[in-house]
């Protein structure tokens, strides 16, 4: 069925409410912003000496860490949307939306639009802070668009994953189930040093971790030397396809549960 005007109208309505509540409740918005800024300060600032490690061949440690923070912040912004979905179902708003929308996948679309718009603000802030901290950008405009696009895809992946859980559990108690796997996957990637410098158990784990491809792709784009981009996009789109099914089946589960 082709989405019509009403479908997108419902999606925008869900997105509008999500953003309205986000920006009128600092208690919800600020933690989502503090989180990446804290990691940026801790990693790019506190661990800057790691950049002096022999064979650490990335041109700028702040830029190296920024790419991780970008992917991390984007993914966590997706997870936070899962929290909102669960909260809405817990408080009954989920039911209102289920009743008012003729095609319910527009609800998921609405949360996704809201998450993407939220992300822009997060990106502007972490990019601004990183530039103020002296981050050097070597990528061209196209490279940077590619890098931020990877961030957006990471956001959609995490959103679909957490939405699938939120629709199934419809309770904020499922928060750790949404957050922990994403958090673990992020930190099992080459966070502090390039992949080539990883040793021990983390090395093979990072090799098969899909986040690694996204991270390497983003770093190469930031450096103006794109490598592994097709792999990064391929993995991201593959995960989105799989997790879209997961989220939509979760939505069906929510429908069946009433």
């Amino acid at each position, binding site marked *: 069925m082709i989405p019509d005007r009403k479908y997108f109208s419902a999606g925008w*309505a869900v997105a509008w409410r999500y953003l309205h509540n986000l920006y009128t409740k600092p208690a919800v918005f600020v933690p989502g912003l503090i989180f990446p800024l804290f990691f940026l300060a801790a990693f790019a600032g506190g661990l800057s000496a790691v950049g002096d490690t022999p064979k650490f061949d990335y041109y700028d440690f702040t830029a190296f860490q920024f790419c991780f923070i970008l992917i991390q912040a984007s993914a966590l912004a997706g997870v936070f949307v899962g929290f909102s979905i669960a909260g809405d179902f817990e408080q009954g*708003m989920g039911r209102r939306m289920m009743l008012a929308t003729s095609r319910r996948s527009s609800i998921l679309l609405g949360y996704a639009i809201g998450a993407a718009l939220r992300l822009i603000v997060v990106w502007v802030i972490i990019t601004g802070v990183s530039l103020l901290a002296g981050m050097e950008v070597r990528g061209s405009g196209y490279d940077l668009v590619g890098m931020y696009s990877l961030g957006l895809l990471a956001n959609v992946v995490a959103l679909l994953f957490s939405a699938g859980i939120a629709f199934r559990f419809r309770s904020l108690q499922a928060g750790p189930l949404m957050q922990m796997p994403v958090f673990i996957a992020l930190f099992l990637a080459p966070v502090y040093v390039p992949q080539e410098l990883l040793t021990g158990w983390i090395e093979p784990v990072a090799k098969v971790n899909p986040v690694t491809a996204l991270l390497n792709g983003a770093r190469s784009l930031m450096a103006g030397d794109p490598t592994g981009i097709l792999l990064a996009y391929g993995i991201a789109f593959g995960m989105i396809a799989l997790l879209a099914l997961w989220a939509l089946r979760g939505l069906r589960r929510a429908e069946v549960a*009433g």
Partner: protein
Amino acid sequence: MPEREAGQGAPNTQSNGIEVEGLVRQFKNGPKAVDGISLTVEPGEIYGFLGPNGAGKSTTVHMLTTLLPPTAGSARVAGLDVANQGAEVRKLIGAALQEAALDPNLTGREHMKLQTALHGLPREERVRRGDELIERVGLSSAADRRVGGYSGGMKRRLDLALALVHRPRVLFLDEPTTGLDPQSRASLWEEVTRLSTQDGVTVFLTTQYLEEADQLANRVGIIDAGKIAAEGTPSALKAEIGRPSVEVLPVDPERRGEAEQILLRFGTAVPAARDALSVRLNEGINELAAIVRSFDSAGIELASLGLNEPTLDDVFLAKTGRHLEGAGEADSAEMRLPEVEAAGSS
């Protein structure tokens, strides 16, 4: 409020009824919350779905509003199958569920904006429709206040307005007046009646208040333990279970036996209030004068004499063998005729 004809004055009666056949909902590893109910609601009718807590009222509403798929059976709302045409059904129905699902951070007007957009109303119509409904439910002065500060009655009225934004042909109200003060309740009844009589909206209303079903509904379905125990107009249901009863309280407790003998000439004994005597009349209300004369001629002075019409609670009792939970306090005052003081005194 006089009993009304279904769909009276209804301009829109085109296939906006409800047809339910053998509807079942069984939850995982649980009993059947709804156990094979069948009912028909005519277009423009107000159908009262009466039953105690846990009887299956809300589960039925959830199935009819496509929030919950039936385990078995079928239901058509506005001519559409709820199981297979959910998206189309949702375009034609409005629902205000038991818990008014409102966002405490949004104002009343913002809720209208959200709801009109969720239903896909054209942008130019959204504000107009929202303002119109806010005014209709009497929330204009509070429209720009956050809903978190609304009273229960205001929330219910806003919920009703939200259910109406897309001009639904069938409206589901799940216990809409639970917890409301009498004034808010009356105002909501008035609006529901107007929707049915003037706009021709079919209303499916669940309630555990006998008075509400009696006053509002053209027809009533009584549900108990997931099954329909009785169905019909309130007056037909009451007539079905029978005749009114008379309850008397003799002034002199020692003449209670004589009073009982007199009463039993007119009917069969039924449970009465403490120290009082009550009989279900054999011939109906016409016997009241004869009863008064009998007490008068026997010289038995009465502290009170009351005529009790059958209530829906009596119907529920007759059909299920027990009283409806919470019945009595809300209904007895309205349903009983004024007592005739000291009828036998002379």
